[in-house]
């Protein structure tokens, strides 16, 4: 069963690759480890890494070649805000908050460029230390073709299956209308969305977690298991082919594996347990002692 699913996913990925001729060949180089679920460029944590770290996460480019990652913090001095971190022997780079006490959302990009292609992978690393809100961080243009979330889920929150979230697509800093945005998920779904006149696409996260949602359990070990997704846009302009992707994670719908009926049952049971306390007793004498 599992093999069948994997084969299907691989086939789907292959199809996506076929539709996306500019996607670089997977698993071709020292820094490029292939992902079976998508052919789009990704930035993924090294094994054992996760969201909500305080100190550093190790992120590596997948499905594209990059010798370094560009890290943009929401907070800190101008020199601190943008840094380049080299990708090491293991194919990962250490992304850290700008200062031990400053964290929050950090934008991370890998870029591969030659005469005819510009390929960009982007994601967000979250550090659970306090820091500036990412509103400005997401607004600043940095590359030709960009996909940025309108809003990021807050700490302890997630993008979730069956939810709709807005994403903006820009080209040279300007909103890109009627642009196709493709979605691939770790659980094997494929989606296609179109931006409106403001360059905004509403992405519906597919309800695709398998029932016993152990899936691949990324991130830290409480909270729902998460799966990865990638959104990708492609554009030909001025003799160049641009491929940009944004990847992050999403979680199962909140009502999966939860029973409100059992919750209500125990709530009512507790209420019933307190009823004996409500048997009336003689009230206090005015301002005085209790009748024993």
């Amino acid at each position, binding site marked *: 069963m599992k093999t069948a699913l994997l084969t299907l996913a691989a086939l789907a990925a292959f199809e996506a690759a076929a539709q996306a001729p500019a996607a670089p060949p997977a698993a071709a180089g020292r820094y490029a480890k292939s992902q079976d679920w998508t052919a789009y460029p990704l930035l993924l944590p090294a094994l054992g890494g996760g969201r909500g770290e305080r100190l550093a996460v190790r992120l590596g480019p997948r499905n594209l070649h990059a010798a370094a990652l560009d890290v943009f913090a929401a907070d800190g001095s101008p020199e601190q805000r943008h840094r380049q971190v080299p990708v090491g022997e293991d194919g990962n780079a250490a992304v850290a908050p700008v200062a031990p006490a400053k964290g929050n959302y950090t934008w991370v990009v890998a870029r591969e460029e030659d005469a005819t292609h510009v390929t960009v992978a982007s994601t967000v690393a979250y550090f659970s230390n306090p820091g500036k809100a990412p509103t400005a961080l997401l607004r600043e243009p940095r590359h030709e073709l960009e996909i940025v979330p309108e809003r990021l889920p807050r700490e302890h929150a997630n993008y979730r299956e069956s939810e709709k979230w807005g994403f903006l697509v820009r080209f040279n800093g300007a909103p890109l209308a009627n642009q196709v945005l493709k979605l691939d998920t770790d659980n094997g779904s494929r989606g296609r969305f179109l931006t409106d006149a403001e360059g905004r696409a509403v992405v519906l996260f597919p309800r695709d977690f398998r029932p016993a949602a152990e899936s691949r359990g990324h991130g830290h070990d409480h909270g729902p298991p998460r799966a990865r997704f990638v959104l990708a846009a492609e554009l030909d302009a001025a003799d160049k082919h641009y491929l940009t992707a944004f990847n992050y994670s999403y979680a199962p719908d*909140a009502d999966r594996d939860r029973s409100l009926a059992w919750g209500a049952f125990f709530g009512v049971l507790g209420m*019933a347990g307190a009823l004996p306390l409500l048997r009336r*007793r003689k009230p206090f004498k005015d301002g005085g002692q209790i009748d024993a």
Partner: protein
Amino acid sequence: MLKALFPTLARFRLAVQLIMLALTVYGSVVVGHYAAEKISGALPALSCAYDMQNSAYCVLIPTQHQFHHRIGEGIVRAQQVTFQIVIPFLMTVLSFFAFFVVIGKAFCGWVCPLGTIQELVARIGRRFGFGLRRFVPGDLGAVGRVRPVKWLLLLALVFLLPLLAGLGVASHSLGNPYCDICPSRLATTLLTGNTEQLALRTNDGIAFALGAIGDALFGFLLVAALAVRQPFCRICPLLAWNSLFQRLSPLRLVKTPHEACAKCGVCSQACPLDIAEIAQAHGRKAFHEDCTLCGRCAEYCPQDGVIQLKWGPWALFASGREYYKRRVKAELPDGSVKPVRFAAREHA
């Protein structure tokens, strides 16, 4: 103007509580999606991280997480001790402490959303004439019997089990067991119309059991609060946690001895935590570990200046006979209100 709006300390406290309840439950509506994370740093308690509308930061969550992920797992890895373990842990304790230096235990009596909810339920109870039950001998039993529970909960659920989970000795489902039973999590999320927290996880036995205990506890105290004042505060690990720092805060309750106390005891009747020491003792002993700094004892003490709420050298409120007389006319020390009478008004 201020006097007209807030004729009593109780009225002023209620206003503060309602504002803080709105902020801790619906904070993000006021301050925006991400900014909510920032006030959270300034409100480090019972601003529940499970409530997606609020400002999301409760000291009990990072404490459990740090025992689980940093201290527990850190001991396992035995590396980078200062940076990975001590500093984040101190930051949690310090930001919490900075808050408590300013307001001290008044957090419990003035800010805590669950405290406010219990008091509102109690008002309904008094209004509908449910007889008040007290932790006194002859009624629910001596208050001393419940007092150790909060310390046990703090030790076991906030410190020990997360630590054992981090060490790999206990299941990771025990990573934040206090949150799993915390009634404030249920109260604040339900107030935002979110029933997710009430629903039980059916794919994990431990999570199901903890959730069931939490839900039953929540149901219990919602009904119990009709008759017993602040039923949860008595066993709340945050009350215990706060009391560790209570002598360090400039905000405190000061009681001076008075000969009337021997036969009086009105203050301890007014005390929602049934603290007998406020009437029987004075000085340090009277400012008990269970005190929430609600100030009711000072409101109901008929002797001038015997009980005071002080911040540093300044008395914010002091008991007094005139105030007492006014106060008991509206509400008895136990919180009951005079029944509404439908009689013709007398004209002078």
